[in-house]
């Protein structure tokens, strides 16, 4: 899953360790998310969005393409 975590963190002037402590995970987990080697749980994704005071879709792009909607829209 593509994400903008690295950019948000850099703009906030935080280290990976600072961010990790802020959301209660290890520094390695933050590193793995930034390198897109690990997709966080929904709970952690919401925590990160809340931490940066942004919408979750600003941080994460699931890149699922155009899946349409149950009602037939696009």
């Amino acid at each position, binding site marked *: 899953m593509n994400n903008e975590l690295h950019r948000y963190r850099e703009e906030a002037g935080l280290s990976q*360790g*600072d961010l990790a*402590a*802020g959301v209660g*995970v*290890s*520094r390695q*987990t933050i590193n793995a998310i930034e390198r897109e080697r*690990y997709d966080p749980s929904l*709970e952690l994704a919401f925590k990160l969005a809340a931490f940066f005071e942004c919408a979750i879709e600003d941080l994460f792009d699931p890149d699922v393409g155009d899946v349409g909607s149950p009602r037939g829209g696009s």
Partner: protein
Amino acid sequence: MGTDDTGWLARRRWYRRLLYGVLVAGIAGFVLAGRVGRPLLAVAIYWTAFLGFLGVRRFSPMVLFDERDVALERRASYDALRLAGVALIVGAPAAFVLAEAGFDGVSEAPPRIEGVLLGYAGLFVAFGVAYLARRYRP
């Protein structure tokens, strides 16, 4: 936004080192006591260390393993189970055929191999029980 709690990670790291350190010390103590001919002491050290390990994990003031640790553990368990499955699928019929037919003086698989296969079979039984318990738990 932001945090100045830089000591949080260091404390977490300390507790994780304590967790594994207790376990390693227990195993080392077990081996050493066993080598000097004190088997009861060896077992006592081993169990004390294991209880210490559980105690640190249970009572540490912070979560020592985050969701990625859990995900890695789950993935590694899945891979290990697949390997055991392949070994069992390939090995069990071979051991059976050896025992039934015998080839050039080899009448059955070595006991160690049979033990390993039996262990793998037990592992899959345990997996099945755990899976069903998870699936149908209230």
